[in-house]
């Protein structure tokens, strides 16, 4: 607690003493709503501190558990896929046909499929 004005070493002036006395008295006149709000704020801060302290433990175990969880996830999700990713004969596409399919020019052939389908049916029809 300040008892002297440290700026010039002189004792406190009346205005300083009076202001301090009034301020201290006003502390006892806070209404219930304000006191309750301050109480809640204090407890919220304490909860924050406790949470930070707990995080200090989890910062160590967290990465390990995270790695284990990630490994388990990969094994569960992608594990069966590795064993089932064998193309069936019906879905198989010979590798030598990929370059044909991937060729941009052949996209136009795909767009004309309807035409070729019709052409096939018209050729099948007997002439005349």
């Amino acid at each position, binding site marked *: 607690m300040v008892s002297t*004005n440290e*700026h010039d070493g002189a004792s406190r*002036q009346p205005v300083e003493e009076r202001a301090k006395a*009034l301020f201290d008295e006003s502390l006892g006149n806070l209404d219930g709503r304000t006191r309750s709000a301050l109480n809640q704020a204090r407890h*919220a801060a304490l909860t924050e*501190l406790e949470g930070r*302290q707990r995080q200090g433990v989890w*910062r160590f175990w967290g990465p390990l558990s995270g790695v284990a969880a990630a490994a388990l996830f990969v094994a569960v999700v992608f594990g069966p896929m590795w064993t089932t990713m064998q193309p069936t004969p019906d879905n198989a596409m010979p590798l030598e046909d990929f370059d044909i399919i991937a060729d941009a020019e052949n996209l136009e052939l795909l767009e004309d499929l309807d035409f070729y389908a019709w052409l096939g049916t018209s050729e099948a029809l007997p002439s005349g």
Partner: protein
Amino acid sequence: MLDIVSLGTAMRWESDAPPVTAASVDRTRELDRFLLDVEKRAFRIARIAVRHDDDALDIVQDSMLQLARRYGQRSSEEWRPLFFRILQNRIRDCLRRRKVRSKLLGWLPSRADDADDADPYEAVADGAPLPVQRLATDQAMQKLEHALFELPARQQEAFMLRNFEGLDVAETAQAMGCSEGSVKTHYSRAVHTLRERLGDSW
């Protein structure tokens, strides 16, 4: 595959983190005692600065949270100047926002105008008349608050931190983010101005 070397490094680094032990519980109790000690004064200081109960409560609540979040693990001897540094920053933020809002929405009533209105809770009668002495004290406090509000911000800060909170010059300098010489200058000018406005026997 886990890298054992990295794991060991992580363990060594993270071993600095505080375990949840009796020490942690003690730290929580320490913070509780500190906040219980400062909360009312912090609210009154913020209330004088922003002249609005809810804003002052928000400022104090945020300051408490920030102290716990950022400096909860520091030595408790550092908490006081740190807390009031945070408090002053929050007060400035509130006043800055209010100024910007009043400029942008000048046609709406500003919060500063609302702050000058009487506290609605004070208008609720408790059924008993206030003692004459209490009325006189309240009026004197209102005059003091008004005079403090009129001070330049830095003089107001220096006066309230030194006089109301009892911080020494070094702690006040830390809380205000200025030199000790500046603290003494601001404080001296504040006292001079208050004496002129209030007189020695208000």
